[in-house]
Structures are given as structure tokens and as C-alpha cells.
């Protein structure tokens, strides 16, 4: 997946966020605005990057699995999936819908 495509995706996300402001009721809940220490079930992984989705899958991070935010450090989220801790950035956190 080349960077330009991810760029496109990013813009799509930006547009989504603009929608949020206009229409608060249809707000998409993703990991970036989730609570710390609360177990969530993953609703979907929203990305055009199929390889990234597959990679997250092999870690056990896919629709229906549980995920918990352990800490938020600056712009990094520490998450617990299965029995491991991962650090992910805010962009990725926004791609995980809960």
C-alpha cells in the first residue's frame, strides 16, 4: 500500500470528522475517544490499507474481539489486545471503531 493512498484515506477521515461537527448524533465512536481501563468490543477496522488490516488481524485485533486502552501518552495509545501491550498512534486509534 503506498503512502499516497493512505493520504487519501486520511482525507476521508478528515471529512468524517467534519461530518461529526455538523451532525453530532451520527458520531462514530473510535478508540481515540474511548475511555481508559474500559473493555471494548471492536466494531470494525476502518482502513483502505488491507495489509494493515491483515496485520492487525494476526495480532487478534479484529471485529468482535475485545480491546482495552491502558494509557494515553502524548499522542500514543497503549492498548491491550489478547495478552500483549502495543503502542499505536492516534491515526491508527481512529481507525479502530468500538
Amino acid at each position, binding site marked *: 500500500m503506498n503512502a499516497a493512498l493512505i*493520504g487519501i484515506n486520511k482525507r476521508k477521515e478528515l471529512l468524517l470528522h467534519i461530518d461529526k461537527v455538523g451532525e453530532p448524533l451520527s458520531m462514530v465512536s473510535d478508540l481515540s475517544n474511548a475511555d481508559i481501563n474500559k473493555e471494548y468490543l471492536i466494531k470494525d477496522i476502518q482502513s483502505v490499507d488491507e495489509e494493515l488490516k491483515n496485520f492487525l488481524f494476526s495480532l487478534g485485533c479484529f471485529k468482535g474481539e475485545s480491546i482495552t486502552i*491502558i494509557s494515553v501518552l502524548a499522542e500514543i495509545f497503549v492498548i491491550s489486545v489478547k495478552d500483549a501491550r502495543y*503502542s499505536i498512534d492516534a491515526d491508527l486509534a481512529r481507525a479502530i471503531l468500538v
Partner: protein
Amino acid sequence: MKIALAGNPNSGKTTLFNALTGKIEHVGNWAGVTIEKKEGAVKKALNRSDRTVTIVDLPGAYSMSPYTSEESITRDFVKNEKPDVIINIVDATNLSRSLFFTTQLLNLDIPVVIALNKSDMTKKKKNSIEVEQLSKLLCCPVVETISIKEDNNGLQKLIATAIIVDGKSQAAPYKGEVENLTDVKSVEKSDVARFAFIKELVAKVEMKSVKSNAQTGQDALDRFVANKWLGIPIFAAVMWGVFSLSQTHVGPFFADLLVGWIDGFYGLVEGAMGSDISPVLSSLLLDGIIGGVGAVVGFLPLIMVLFFLLALLEDCGYMARVALVMDRYFKKVGLSGKSIIPMVIGTGCAIPGVMATRTIKNERQRRTTAMLTPFMPCGAKLPVIALFAGVFFNDAAWVGTTMYFLAIAIIIAGAFIIVHITGEKNARSFFIMELPEYRMPSFKRAAVSMMSRAKAFIIKAGTIILLCNAAVQLMQTFNWQFKVVAEGAESSSILASIASPFAFLLIPLGFGVWQLAAAAITGFIAKENVVGTLAVVYSITNFIDTEELALVAGGSDVAAVMRLTSAAALSYLVFNLFTPPCFAAIGAMNAEMENKKWLWAGIGFQFGMGYVISFLTYQIGTLITTGKFGQGFIYGFIAVALMIAYVTSLVIKGNKKAVMKLNLSVKVT
């Protein structure tokens, strides 16, 4: 018989490989240290059969469908090269994820033995795993191992079991039949079912007293060391501590002893040769070979202490947190925290550092990281840093620490420029990295890593450095007519006439003399040569104990011999650290970038960066200390201004490209 070691990243494959074969491959407490497969024979003590057993260590993989290029190495090896047995290393603390890959390996019809590694950690976490039950459910033998332990670690049993299963068939506990392999949905369905199967299986064999998503002391520690504000100061303090111990306190103590022996050896050889030997031969042997090599080897204790401490840092799990702290800054310049790992490895040697860029998926990020990693001060640059810190700055720990942080600053600035030139400033990429658990670092492993680096250092000193020093000594002794250079006419030597034109270019940097230019040039063969050549051209053998030299040379010291001001000395240090690396590292850059344009641009960029930083260091330093600019300011200023103008024009062109790309992507959207 051939056994492949396969498993998730950071499950301890290389540690197990080292324990099985007695090799000393690089290990670290984070994911993605091993990027190439490595082979070795199992030690006699662990192999009770009369067969030769070869072990192949593979890079970590989470699944058989690879994401990174090193994961593909693993997949290709087990699929195409058909090892006789696969030892699947399973991290006992993360069964539910690890078994995904395990069940995929079990489908290949190659006998599998599971090494349930880190089995001591499960006990520590008050968890328990029913090994027999696990073995029955997975249809393959399971052996509990603790690869970091010396004995009673299960390794003998592991090899014995692997030999027993060789040639047998392997039943698959989970078939994972896919209706249509070309259909993404159908593959996904099968994989989801695989995870469900594992979940059920793990529930049967694993008893957990604490849920894994509960907050632990480790998480609290993470919040402290990777804190938004404290993260960088803590990293700086840690690095300062490392330099303070290795260059100011512990290192010099041992270095003094070693240098004493080298001086003793020098005296011994001098005495043995007597006075009727040819002066050319005697100075070649004494000043060229023993003096030059001795000057480099004198820094060995400092380097060993530094590598010992860096190995401890890698082993305890802190380095993964550094990557996390740096991600924020790296992201702003188009890189990600992933780029930190090659750079950390680059503190040992730039070659494996550049090779580690392979774990980066994005091509531009990978090439940028390969171009910038050599800015990190590597092991070979340490003697240069130690020499200048010792001679000009009274062994201050701030010199080394500053050089590391200056390197990071240059890397960030460099990445910023590159992302703008390539016109990809709007591109985004994701960052995800597994956070390994902290653990008590092992002094033994650190010692092993230190000794292997020391060995490599000594071998290099005895070969490349020795040859270079001998060549420098000869080129300094003779002129182009192959006559011995007369005293007082040193500048007619071969060395001086080659180095002088370069020296001219270095005047605005504060060190435009042929001796220093020659040392910088030999640095491209190996950076330790800078120290060796300085020793040869100035006939100084002892850089460690500078007070002693002051007595020998009758009141003058090394600083006075080299006739450099502090600002010029710092500038010379900066120049040697931040111009292109040695030829071997440039070769590694060429291999990883896979593009000649990037390679030459990279080398040009490194030269330009080194020149500009060095110019600024000397001129600003001189302005502060003396109140006026140093030599050749105008010429240097013109050169630097031209370089900056050229780079700026490239950036403007790149930004135009970026705007076009953005417009294009808007149209697509």
C-alpha cells in the same frame, strides 16, 4: 537434520538459538531484532544423538501471511525449504496470540515441537498452563523452556524431542479449510474461525489469576518514562549517565591500565630493536603500527563499558519506550517510531542499523531512515568522541551526550527536508509496535554482547586500522620521488600533498591543515582511523593519559600539539561524526535503498550536513569565545549559502509536487 526456529517476534528465538548453538547473535528485548535467517549447529552438550543437528533461526512472524519483508523470509523458508522439524517458540505469557501462528505451522505436515518459552514468567504472574493438555489438544509435543537460563532450561529435552519426531507426520488440530483461497472474505472467515478455535483451546489449558488488561506496575512505569514532558529529559539523563560512566568514571580507569601496558610494549620493542636499525623502519613499526594501533586500542575499555551499558538498556525493555517517545517528533517529519529501532541498533554499528530498516514498510520512510541512520554515533566513532572529550573538554560526559542528541536533531531536520523534497509531506502512515515487558537486565548477556563487540574491535584494529596506519606512516615518510622527507619539509610528503587540497576546503571549518584533513579522509575507510592517523601524523601514542604526555613532550599537551581551539576541535569532531559513514556502511545503504539516485543524494546530503554543522560550530563558537568570526568565514558562508539555496529550491519543487498530489487525491475522493 535441519530444525527451523519459528515464532512470534520477541518470543526469544534468537536467545534460544544462541543457547542451542553457542553463537552470539544480537538479541534485544523488543520485536524485530532478527531480520535475516541464521544457521548454526547444536552444541554437543545438548545433542545426545550422533546426528548433526542444524538450527535455523528465523525472523519473528505473527502469521503465515506476511506483513513485513522479514516475515516473508520466515514464511518462504518453512514453505519452500522444508525443514525436517519446526521448533515453534511460543511465548507462554501470550498463548492466545501465539497459537494463531502455531496452528498455521501445524497445517504444513512438518513435525512441530512447541517450546513453551518464558515459562518462568507465567509462574511469576501467578498463571498456570496445563502442558500435557495443551500437547494433546495441539497434537504435538510441548516442552517448557526458559532460554535465558543457564541450566535446567529444558533445552536438552527440546532437542531430544525434536530428534524423536523427525520423519513422522504431523496431524493438524485445526484444519482451517478455506472454501475459496482467492476470495478474501472466505479466507477471513476461516481465520476468524481459527482464532475462535484457539480461544476455546486456551480456555481449557490456561488458568489466569489476573486479567491481562488489568493495570500493572509496568504500565505505571510506562506512563512515567514515556511521559509527554518527562520522556525526553529522562532519555537524556539516561544517556548522560551512560557517557558519564563510560567516559569519565569507569572507562578511563581501565583505559589507564591498558595504555600503560601499550606504552610498556612500545618501550620493549624500541629497546629490542636497538639503535642500529634504519630510522624509517623503526618509525614505521613504532609510530606507525604500534603507536597508531595502540592509540585506537587504548579506547577499547571506554567502548566496552559503553556497550555493556547499552546492552543492559536494550535488555531491560527501555529502548522500545524510547521509540514510543520519539514517534511524536518523527511523525511530524514523515517518519515513525519504527525508524528509531535502526537508529538504536546503529549506535553499535551503522551496518546492521541500516539493514534493520528492512522492517519499515513504506519505501520513502525506509530509504530516509537508511540515509539518516549513519548519523548516529556508532562504535567506531566513539574513540573519536572520547579523544576529543578527553583532550579538549576534560573528559566531560556532556560531549558524548550532546553528540547523540545532536545526531537525533540532525536526523529529524534531515527527515523534514527529505519529506518535503519528495513531496510526500501530506502522506500518513500508521505506527504500531509491541511493547515488551520490562525485566531485570542480565549482566551475563550484556557481558557476552560487550565481549563480542570488543573482539570485533580488536580484529579491526589488527587488520584494517593497522594497514591504514602503516600506509599513512609510509606516505608521510616519503615524498613523490620516494625519498625520505627531510625534517622541516613535512609538507612535501605524499600524504601532505594528497591531503592539502582537501585541507584548503576545510579552512572555514577551522581545521584547514593537511594532517587533520588526512585523518578525516582515512576515516572513510573506518572511523577509528581518525584516531590512528592523528596519532601517526602528530606522533602521539597516548591520548588517554594526557598529563603524562605533557611531561614527555616537555610542557605541551595534545591540544597544543594539534594547535586547535576548543571551537575548532568541536567542529572537527562534528565533521567526522556527521559526514558520510565508512565505505562498508555506504555499501549497506546502497543495498537497502535499492536506488542509485537515493544513494548519491544520501551521500551528498551527508557531506553537506556535516559541512554546514561543522561550519556553524566553528564560526559561532569562535564568535562567542573571541568576539569575531574565525578564518575563511566569507568563503565558507558562500558555500553554505549555496548549499542551503539548492536544498531550498528542491523543497519548493517538492512542495509543488505535494500540492498536485493533494489535488489529485481530492479528485479521487
